[in-house]
């Protein structure tokens, strides 16, 4: 199973762009990279998923370099409501994804 490493916590201010990097050195060929967001007292919520290069949706962007050994979740112009824990997961999208490990995640704190 591919293990991920993320910073434990990050601070930011409202309106700034936040980039959270995740390392996954032993990512396998069939693995996808998925990010989740979790607010206090709620279950995690899917944010974005990608395999290579760049993926963008209405919430975030995901940058994945050619070697795929890391990925960066980019949150544009964060607000106070983006304060949450962000998890990076790596796993086979079709068959092995259910064995992925959430880990401790990155606690993002957005200040006014």
């Amino acid at each position: 199973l591919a293990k991920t490493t993320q910073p434990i916590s990050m601070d930011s201010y409202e309106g700034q762009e936040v980039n959270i990097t995740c390392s996954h050195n032993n990512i396998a060929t069939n693995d996808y990279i998925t990010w989740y967001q979790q607010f206090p007292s709620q279950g995690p919520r899917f944010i974005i998923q990608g395999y290579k290069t760049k993926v963008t949706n209405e919430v975030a962007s995901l940058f994945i370099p050619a070697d795929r050994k890391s990925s960066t979740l980019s949150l544009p112009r964060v607000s106070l409501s983006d304060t949450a824990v962000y998890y990076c997961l790596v796993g086979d999208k079709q068959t092995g994804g259910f064995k992925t490990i959430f880990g401790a995640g990155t606690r993002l704190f957005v200040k006014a």
Partner: protein
Amino acid sequence: DAGITQSPRYKITETGRQVTLMCHQTWSHSYMFWYRQDLGHGLRLIYYSAAADITDKGEVPDGYVVSRSKTENFPLTLESATRSQTSVYFCASSARANEQFFGPGTRLTVL
């Protein structure tokens, strides 16, 4: 309403008692999961299921039992609750294993 629900939302029980946490999803997702989250920590996978009647162990299965006779239901049973099983339990479902939809959680306290 469509979605994933868990019951009860809160449960207090005593050491040694059997407890069953319920999970129900209306999307007909193939995959279902049970996680526990201890205060200040990430989620740990207890059991998962790829389809009805197919279940397998995750990271921390000891002390738990699951079944999945119907696609939409995935109950989790603590056979003999212990204090170390005090936690928040999240159920999730997915059509694709890496894009999971989580329920609201069940906060379980074992006295």
